[in-house]
């Protein structure tokens, strides 16, 4: 009997060891993806050098609406995530978070001016981290990350513009009455921070076209 117990102990340790290694594997995937992202940045930096004179022109083009479609994938995934949180759907939010991570990584900043690229890179880096966390957290944390993520997406759209009409809404109660914003495709208030607990808390601050 004693021997059995010793074997179980050893077995338990082996399992722990296995757990530790598999944990490391996921880690590696993450960092290789980061590598891809910074490569992009370098490319952009080089391009920017030669094109400084045209940056004003580029910016005008962007403002004229040609670039809004670049953000459409991010917006679509963000809205899926928002809807999942509205329906208190943790798993749906996790899947959407993962998808958003992908569309943020695919976001091509090269057509923007140097200054905008720097800002976009910061926004995307931060937003990606929040999307990653949403993919693996409980719903309380998902909502905390969604709060900061929403700010990131709002700032992103301030640069890129949006292809579709969006409504920027505000819930004054979330985060100990510090308040939190979110974006929605409809004017009707459906609160992603409280879900069914307080579905209609909040108001529309402005319309984004």
């Amino acid at each position: 009997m004693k021997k059995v117990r010793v074997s179980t102990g050893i077995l338990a340790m082996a399992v722990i060891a296995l757990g530790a290694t598999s944990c490391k594997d996921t880690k590696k995937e993450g960092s290789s993806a980061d590598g891809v992202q910074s490569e992009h940045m370098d490319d952009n930096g080089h391009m920017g050098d030669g094109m400084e004179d045209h940056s004003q022109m580029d910016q005008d083009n962007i403002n004229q609406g040609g670039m809004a479609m670049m953000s459409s994938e991010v917006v679509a995934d963000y809205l899926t995530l928002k809807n999942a949180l509205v329906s208190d759907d943790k798993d749906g939010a996790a899947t959407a978070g993962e998808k958003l991570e992908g569309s943020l990584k695919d976001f091509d900043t090269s057509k923007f001016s140097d200054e905008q690229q720097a800002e976009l890179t910061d926004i995307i880096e931060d937003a990606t981290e929040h999307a990653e966390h949403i993919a693996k957290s409980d719903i309380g944390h998902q909502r905390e990350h969604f709060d900061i993520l929403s700010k990131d997406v709002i700032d992103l759209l301030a640069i890129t513009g949006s292809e579709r009409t969006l409504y920027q809404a505000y819930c004054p109660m979330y985060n100990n009455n510090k308040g939190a914003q979110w974006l929605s495709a409809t004017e009707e208030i459906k609160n992603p921070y409280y879900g069914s607990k307080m579905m209609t808390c909040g108001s529309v601050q402005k319309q984004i076209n």
Partner: protein
Amino acid sequence: MNAVKTTGWILLVALVGIQFVPTERNKSDVVPKTDFMVVNEVPKNIENIIKTSCYDCHSNNTDYPWYNRVQPVAWFLEGHIENGKEELNFNEWDTYSGRKKKSKLRSIISQIKDDEMPLASYTLIHRDAKLSDTEKKTVLDWVSKLKDSL
């Protein structure tokens, strides 16, 4: 019973075998210019709390316990440190964008408030890393102020 015995022996050999797998040590004497304590004006008591409770996993220098040399504990620790540093590395604080700093401070506040950090598995052995209610409040107030000033 024979099968159990054989499995036991195999596992024992494996356990001894893995002791020879080297691990990376998270050690550095250099405090970079980008360190949290260098770029911020941190009161001494706050600095002590953060260094004791956070820096083992969230900086480039770990104060290793003796059992770190035993596998698979060493792997377990290595994984923790690697994860911890990727999430937040106080040594690299000033390389973060303003946006990222704010995000990180907000996460620090929420993790400490909810008792998720420092990790229970860590404070179990590092008793001095465990935050008392007063320490928690002191750190949270100060970090909140820093966040609002950014």
